[in-house]
């Protein structure tokens, strides 16, 4: 039996359907990522699974327990790493860990050992007595994760834990998640960074406008779009990106999206239509700085399913 079973889950706010007809399973020990732009319904999904948001439709079971009961046993099974730095800024690193540990029922020696282990594992041992507000952004992110997994949950929800941090701290966090994965933890990870989803996940679900559009391993998803390839064009001017996309829109079987001066084009056998792409760029007098043909990846998959590219800020292009 799967650890997480989501069946036709939905959430509406009045006439707005934030999530609809969501159905997926997560196996024990699996890292499953929900990939989608801001407002796609990722956080609402996590909110429902954590019991923070009441579903409007459907149900989900975690370890066989329905999320609708808001059971304490279910919440003890889960650990949540929220998008925000949800920590007490005026208290020390250790005080924060002790508090969250106690809230999940840890006491005495077990609590002390777990806190000490977390401080060492997350590289915070020498800052244990520091007040949280004096920590760097990356350290706060690490502490945010440590507080979420201190009690040793069977399932960890991570809601965009690398948003707004420097590359070095992001790398450290990704390594921590890979370590969790190696230890057999089950993780539901949400992100709008395709590289992260590709690196961390056993399976990825592509979510947009509250609907799960596709799901599978990165390889399966790439196969699912019929061997499409992508070509990445780097233009000289940001304004040319949108104009080139307009030019390419008329070509049959071609999907294109721009993120400033960067244009992604997806099509079957893209190498064969490359001359026409270059011609289109020349026709609008766009200066081409670089062309790169890529193997099918999540970027191609996302473009193929949504008709849009996912930008670095989590928006759509």
């Amino acid at each position, binding site marked *: 039996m799967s650890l997480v079973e989501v069946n036709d889950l939905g959430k509406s706010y009045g006439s707005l359907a934030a999530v609809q007809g969501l159905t997926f399973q997560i196996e024990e020990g699996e890292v499953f990522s929900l990939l989608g732009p801001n407002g796609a319904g990722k956080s609402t999904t996590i909110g429902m699974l*954590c*019991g*923070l948001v009441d579903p409007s439709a459907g149900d989900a079971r975690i370890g066989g327990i329905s999320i609708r009961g808001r059971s*304490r*046993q279910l*919440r*003890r099974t*889960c650990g*949540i790493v*929220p*998008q*925000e*730095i*949800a*920590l*007490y*800024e*005026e*208290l020390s690193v250790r*005080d924060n860990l002790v*508090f*969250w540990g*106690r*809230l*999940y*029922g840890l006491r005495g020696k077990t609590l002390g050992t777990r806190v000490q282990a977390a401080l060492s594992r997350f590289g915070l041992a020498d800052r244990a007595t520091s*007040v949280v507000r004096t920590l760097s952004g990356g350290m706060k992110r690490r502490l945010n994760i440590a*507080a979420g997994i201190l009690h040793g949950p069977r399932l960890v929800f991570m809601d965009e834990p690398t948003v707004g941090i420097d590359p070095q701290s992001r790398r450290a966090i990704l390594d921590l998640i890979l370590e969790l994965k190696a230890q057999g933890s089950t993780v539901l990870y949400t992100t709008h960074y395709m590289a992260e989803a590709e690196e961390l996940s056993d399976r990825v679900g592509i979510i947009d406008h509250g609907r799960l559009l596709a799901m599978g391993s990165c390889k399966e998803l790439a196969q699912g779009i019929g061997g499409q390839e992508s070509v990445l064009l780097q233009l000289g001017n940001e304004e040319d990106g949108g104009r080139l996309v307009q030019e390419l829109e008329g070509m049959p079987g071609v999907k294109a999206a721009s993120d400033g001066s960067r244009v992604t084009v997806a099509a079957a056998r893209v190498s064969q239509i490359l001359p026409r792409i270059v011609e289109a760029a020349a026709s609008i007098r766009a200066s081409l700085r670089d062309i790169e043909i890529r193997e099918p990846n999540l970027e191609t998959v996302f473009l193929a399913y949504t008709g849009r590219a996912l930008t670095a800020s989590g928006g759509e292009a």
Partner: protein
Amino acid sequence: MSVVLIAMQELKRVLRDPSGLLLTLALPLALTVAVGFISGRVPLGRPPSDGFDALSYVAPGMALFAMMFSVRQAAKTTVDDADRGITRRLRSAPIGEISIAVGRTLSGVVMVAAQLLLLVGVSSALYGLRWGSPLPVLLLCLALSLSAGGWAALLVSLGRTSRGVGTLGTALTLVFAILSRSFAAVVPSAPWMDALSRITPNHWGLHGFSALALSGTLGSIAPDLLRLVLMSVTLWILAPLAGRLMTWRRKT
């Protein structure tokens, strides 16, 4: 158990926050000392045996003014916690939602009661101020802190954002102090002001403290205690309704 855990955590936060401590404890203490100095009282000196003692009226007014600042501070912290995702994280933990609300309120009640009692203690020790019998004073402080909890809940519902709560809280603190004449008992006020001041905890607090200072008993302040507890209950009922009204107004 989780109620105590949350209440302790909240108290710890207040004690580790220098600006909060300054506003809730140090400022009213400093003001009391300053008013004592201005009114010609010498610390540890003899209290005046007859005539009007300005400090005996101003000190309770100051205490209630400081209490309303604490209400503002507590409401602001609640909204800030919601913005920073702390409330969401607490709600995802294996504890009841009521435990979170009760824990937070309990810490606020303890904090306000401690603040009032500290002012009572310091002004008694420094200036020999007569507050009345200890038990009724303690009960009045507790009733006042309960009503403060109710006002904090209403402030959260009406203010909604950190800025909104801050502005509304400051306005409420000043308006309540003016309406109840916390600092100027001898200045006559309009009848409508007197009538309106009855919705403030400051009014009933001052009423109770004055009665106790004039050798009042627990029986003589019982109506004040009852009004403060009723005020607290009413505000706790009104707060969620006000929250819904504000959400509806924002949507429309």
